[in-house]
């Protein structure tokens, strides 16, 4: 299953990818911001994990744009964030983010989040 990992921090992308590898996923596309992510997204991507605060185009803006695309309407989007302020989360969800995970997370927590979203996408 192919993941699109969006984060402006290369280190952070590596951390996410490492975690995904540990829980058994092997296919990844990476992007440094929302703009790039929109370019790299296609139907082969089955799950999106995006950072929130990124230059040029934030995770929220990216998700919103993604949801407006026919091929991006149904893909699960998990947002990685460092703060869990309710209003922010709701704003993100309104934009189409399905759930969020707070940094720092363990691979196990990430797995739970992903598993929870996968049947819904099926």
């Amino acid at each position: 299953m192919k993941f699109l990992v969006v984060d402006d921090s290369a280190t952070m992308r590596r951390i996410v990818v490492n975690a995904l590898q540990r829980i058994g996923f092997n296919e990844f596309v990476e992007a440094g911001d929302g703009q790039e992510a929109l370019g790299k997204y296609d139907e082969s991507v089955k799950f999106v994990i995006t950072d929130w605060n990124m230059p040029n185009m934030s995770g929220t803006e990216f998700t919103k744009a993604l949801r407006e695309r026919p091929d991006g309407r149904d893909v699960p989007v998990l947002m990685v964030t460092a703060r869990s302020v309710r209003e922010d989360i709701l704003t993100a969800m309104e934009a189409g983010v399905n759930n969020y995970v707070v940094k720092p997370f363990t691979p196990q927590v990430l797995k739970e989040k992903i598993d929870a979203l996968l049947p819904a996408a099926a």
Partner: protein
Amino acid sequence: MTPLTLDDAAALLVQLEPTDQEDIAKLREALADLALDVQVPLAAQPLVARAARLLGELADHRTDDREATLAAANVALDDAVTAVEAAERRAAARRDGGEARASSAAATTTAPIVVPEMPSPVAPAASSSTPAPAATVVDGSVDTVPDDSDLDLLRDFIIESVECVANSEAALLTLEASPDDAEAVNTVFRAFHTVKGTSAFLGLHRMAGFAHEAESLLSRVRDREIAYTSGCAELSLRSVDMLKAMLADIDRALAGDRRLVVPVGYSALIAALASYDPSHDASLAASPHSVATTSTAAESGDDTARRAAPAAATAGATTGTTGDSTVRVRTDRLDRLIDLIGELVIAESMIAGDPLVSGSAGGVHHDLARKVTHAGKITRELQELAMSMRMVPLRTMFSKLTRLVRDVAIKAGKQVEFVTDGEDTEIDRNMVDILGDPLVHMVRNAIDHGLEAPDQREAAGKARQGQVRLSAYHAGGNVVVELRDDGNGLDRDRIIRKAIEKGLIESDKGMSDSEIFALIFAPGFSTADTVTDLSGRGVGMDVVRRNIESIRGRIDIASAPGKGTTFTIRLPLTLAVTDGMLVRVGTERFIVPTVNIHMSFRPEPSMLSTVVGRGEVVMLRGEVMPMVRLHRLFGVADAVEHPTDGLLMIVGDGEQRRTVLLVDELLGQQQVVAKSLGEWLGTVRGISGGAILGDGRVGLILDVGDVVALGQSGASVPLPAGIALAA
């Protein structure tokens, strides 16, 4: 509390009035939880979230039109219910009438939610993202790099974070000029945020904790909770410094014992960040922005900010994906390359000058000459390219100074607008460090001594805020760096008094303003009445001048009382090549660096005289200058004895008064590659080095400052008695 389904929520909501404050709040909590419930279909999620958010606006009184907001929440929730039903139908169709999956069926009916409960519905690790109060950490105590950390990842983290921090520093400086620049605030916020998030993963909890506090401060600015005041700026800059220190420490620890030391001031800073209250900025409240920085490259301040911030943001965003790709090269190799190309240029000019090629041997070798010319062109292009490899823009240095201005202005209680111009001007890499210290000192001086205190300025009819302008540009094959302040100007009388006091001069008789101003470059000279924390660092203007001269530069001063002072530093474009004038003295040739030459002329007999105690002097347009006969200084035979048969060259090196050198003739301008004469010879007085000339021989490059000094110290130039040069 009651478990709630989406249907229940929708039904509840329809009954609510905009005034049902308490119920709205409850329902909002329930919906927020519901939005995150994994059993709500994806399609419905955004709508539930929207409803929850709108109710939140009502609950927190963040909306003016309560009716409309409530209506919008109703619409959202209805849509959500519709979306769920649609999803169910699709799911049912897919299941092909088969076994109903409990989870899907439950979505609309039984998702059990307790109202209200948050605060953090998920994330077991969330608590560690805001680590325990760091105030308990003792400065200087030791921690270790987490054992299981992926070293590569850590190294990447350091590189990335250093870049992040640098970007945020740039953005902070932008904020100094335009505190309302949202993009700049966000850039800084993001930097702290990124560092926090990543460091938490890497087990660097202390750093994560610190970044968290810094981020919180910036998020208060971002959310307009507090303004970007000077106190806030101060804390932000200190935070940037702290992060830098911590990153450097991790880097060091990685290479060594893996022990992390808590930087001094960590606890104090973290406490200051956590308890920051802008209303306590009292001392600075009167002038919220005591320092303004502007870059004249963009005319309006707004533009400046916008230009700077996104650039910084992009740079941080795309580690390794944008920008010019680079290769690190050892500087000694680069230097050797440049040396060799210098030799190639000379070898090429020797070929071009060969009689066989130039045609002076009689034979005509047009074809050969053409090929040689072609090779010459390539060689020169190669040389230019090689030179450019050592060039770096002054930008980094300028931004360091911007930071310095800020700190010094606050300490000195001055209001300063710092304007920089031409930060893209490039200079030889090897010169940057040597130029840095003098500039730091001069900028400090300009603020500390140059600019008056705000009240004083006001009394003098000037703006309270003083201006310090740092510009760089290319002029006549030189790089010119200019530091101008609009302060009080140099105090001519005080300089004279001090100089007499220190025994530097006997009186100011016959001295021009520029000569008097140049006295501040004399060793040990200082016009400051009190040695302040700011300028009393043991370096004086003499060191400034020496540093600049060591890179073959020259510094001049212009100053007008009440109007300000301008220091002009002229530097060669590069240290690899010296622009020189090749002169002949008897049978020998010397290279005089062009930067030291003011002009040369053939004297009239009436210009020459001998002054008791000063030796031979030359008078030109009212200026009396001592004359140094190079042939005597260097013991050259068969040289022109009478100045009217030779040429006089006016040289000056900033400190000493202008001096004329007697040479036989000028042989022409030449670029030479300066080389050391080698450690075996050591320092040779009056000579700074050697260079291979066009004919393959070595020419000596004059150290003009030393030549002038030698000429003026009577012992070195034994003037024969009765040298009086009668016309």
